[in-house]
C-alpha cells in the first residue's frame, strides 16, 4: 500500500479543486490537462517503459472517440457503455497494429513510421466515410443527464477524468512492480539480452501496446463526451499524437507521474501562447515542437529527471559538508 501513497495523495489533493474554485476557466484548463495526462500515460507505457516510440497514438484516441460517438448517435447505445466499448475498440486496434508491426520485427524509426501511417489511414477513412460524418464530423446530441454521461457543470467531468487518471497511475505503478513491467523495461534496454533471459519480447510488446491503446482510447471517449463534437482531424489528427508523446517526455519519460507533470506544462504553454498571440492556428504546435527539441537536447529525462538530479546533488552536498567541517587533514 505504501507504494500507492503518493498517487492517493496527489489524487486526493486534485479532487479538492472544485471545492476551492468554481471558475470555469480553471476547471476547463484542468480537465483538458488531465485528459492529455491520460492520453500521455497510455503512450508512456509503450514508449517510456517499453522504449517503442509510437508517432500515431491518435489511432487509439480517435477510435475511442468515434466508437462511443457513433454508438450513441447511430445506435442509441448508452454513453457509459460506449466508454467501455470505446476502450475495447481502442485496445483491439492497438492489438492489431501491434501484432502486425512486432511480428514483422519493426522497431525504432520503422515502428514510428508505421504507426504514423496507420493513424493517417484512419484519419483519411474517417474524413470520407459516411458513418463518421465525413468532412462534417459527428455531433453528439446535447442530453444533460448523468445517465447520458453529460453534466451541466464542469465539476463532475473533472472528477471523472481525475478518476480515470488516478486509475491509470495505479495501473502503471502496479505494472512497474510486476514481472511484466520488469520484462518491458528489460526489452527497452536490450532486446537480445532480454530474449536470452526467457522474455518473449514480441508478446510483451504486444501486451504493452494493447494496454497503452486502451488507456489512450479512454481519453478519446472522454473527449467525445466533454466536447460533444469530433471530426477526422480532431480524432485522428497529428495534434493528439504529438501531445501524447510530448507530455510524458517533458514530465519524465518512463515514470509514473511524468505524463501528469508534462501535461500541465504543455497545457500551460498552450494557454500562454493563446494569451499572447490570440487563437492563430499552428502557433501552439510550433511551441510544442520547439519544446520537444529543447527537452531532448537539454533535459532528456524531463522534469522528473531534473528533480532527481537536484535531489542527488543536495544529498551529496550534505554528505560532503560534515567532512569538510571536520578541520583540515595534512
Amino acid at each position, binding site marked *: 500500500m505504501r507504494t500507492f501513497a503518493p498517487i492517493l495523495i496527489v489524487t486526493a489533493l486534485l479532487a479538492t479543486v472544485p471545492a476551492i474554485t468554481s471558475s470555469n476557466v480553471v476547471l476547463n484548463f484542468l480537465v483538458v490537462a488531465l485528459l492529455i495526462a491520460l492520453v500521455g500515460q497510455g503512450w508512456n507505457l509503450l514508449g517510456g517503459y517499453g522504449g517503442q516510440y509510437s508517432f500515431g497514438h491518435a489511432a487509439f484516441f480517435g477510435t475511442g472517440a468515434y466508437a462511443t460517438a457513433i454508438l450513441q448517435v447511430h445506435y442509441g447505445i448508452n454513453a457509459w457503455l460506449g466508454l467501455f466499448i470505446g476502450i475495447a475498440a481502442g485496445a483491439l486496434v492497438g492489438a492489431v497494429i501491434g501484432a502486425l508491426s512486432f511480428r514483422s520485427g519493426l522497431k525504432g524509426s520503422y515502428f514510428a513510421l508505421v504507426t504514423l501511417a496507420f493513424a493517417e489511414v484512419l484519419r483519411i477513412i474517417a474524413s470520407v466515410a459516411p458513418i463518421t460524418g465525413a468532412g462534417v464530423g459527428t455531433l453528439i446530441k446535447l442530453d444533460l443527464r448523468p445517465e447520458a454521461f453529460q453534466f451541466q457543470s464542469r465539476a463532475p467531468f473533472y472528477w471523472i477524468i481525475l478518476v480515470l487518471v488516478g486509475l491509470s497511475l495505479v495501473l502503471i505503478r502496479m505494472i512497474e512492480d510486476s514481472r511484466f513491467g*520488469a520484462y518491458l523495461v528489460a526489452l527497452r534496454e536490450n532486446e537480445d539480452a532480454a530474449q536470452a533471459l*526467457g522474455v518473449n519480447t514480441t508478446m510483451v510488446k504486444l501486451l504493452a501496446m494493447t494496454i497503452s491503446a486502451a488507456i489512450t482510447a479512454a481519453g478519446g471517449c472522454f473527449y467525445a463526451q466533454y466536447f460533444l463534437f469530433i471530426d477526422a482531424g480532431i480524432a485522428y489528427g497529428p495534434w493528439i499524437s504529438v501531445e501524447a508523446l510530448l507530455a510524458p517526455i517533458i514530465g519524465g519519460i518512463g515514470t509514473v507521474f511524468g505524463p501528469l507533470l508534462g501535461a500541465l506544462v504543455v497545457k500551460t504553454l498552450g494557454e500562454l501562447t493563446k494569451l499572447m498571440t490570440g487563437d492563430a492556428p499552428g502557433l501552439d504546435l510550433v511551441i510544442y515542437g520547439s519544446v520537444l527539441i529543447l527537452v531532448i537536447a537539454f533535459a532528456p529525462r524531463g522534469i522528473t529527471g531534473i528533480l532527481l538530479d537536484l535531489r542527488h546533488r543536495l544529498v551529496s552536498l550534505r554528505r560532503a559538508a560534515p567532512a569538510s567541517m571536520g578541520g583540515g587533514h595534512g
Partner: protein
Amino acid sequence: MVEPLLRVEQVSKRFGGLLALDRASLLAPAGRITALIGPNGAGKTTLFSIIAGFAPPSEGRIVYDGADVTGEPPHRLARRGIARTFQIVQPFTTLTVRENIAVGAHLSRPARADALAAAGDVARTVGLGELLDRPAATLTVAGRKRLELARALAIEPRLLLLDEVLAGLNPSEIRDMMPIIHTIRDRGITIVMIEHVMQAVMSLAEHVFVLSEGRIIAEGPPQAIAGDPRVVEAYLGHGAASRMLAEGTGHA
C-alpha cells in the same frame, strides 16, 4: 554411453556467399566444462548464436537433452534451460545490479519480491553482493562480466554458454573468476565456453573443440590440443608447427 546434454550436428551457416560454419559438430557432456577455441573470425560466436536460437543454421541441427531444438527462438530455449552470455556485455544500463539479475530470476518466479530476493542470492554467488543496489552503468568491466554471468545463472539453466567471459579482465580478475566457474560446474550446470585465455582453458576445460575457418579441426583433452600441430597452424599460420618443432630440437 550417456547422451550428452548438447549435441551440435553438422551445422553449417551461410551469409550470402560466405560460408561461416562448415559442418561443425561438437558435444557437451552433462555436468562438464567443454571449451570451444579457435582464432578470431573462426565462427565461434556465430555457432553460439545458432545454439542459443538467435540465428537458424543453414544446415544441421541442435539437439538438447535429446530433443531437436533447431530454430527455436531464444526465449523458448531459455525456458528449456539454455543460458548464454554475450561477448560484448549487454547490461540493462538504467537498472540496478539487483534489478538486472531479477529479470532472469523472474523466469521461474512471477512475484517481484521473490525475483528480487533470488537476485540477491545469485549476486552473492558471483561476488556482486556488495554492489546490488548500484546502477549497472557504474560497474567496471569485471563487474559487468560478473553481472552478465549472474543474469544468466538467474534463469537456473542446465546449459550455460559463456562467450569469452574472461575477455578484458586483468590476471587477478581472471584468477578471481575461475573458482566461480568451478562452483557453477559443481552445481551440476553444463558449461560450454568460448575462450581465448589459454590458462583458463587449460585449467577449466575437460574437453576442447577447435574451430578454424568454420570447421572443427581438432578435439580432445586440453593437453592433447595444446600440442596438436593443426591447432598451432590455425593460430600461428601455415608451417608454424614444423618451424616450432625445428626450433625446439635446436635447443637440445
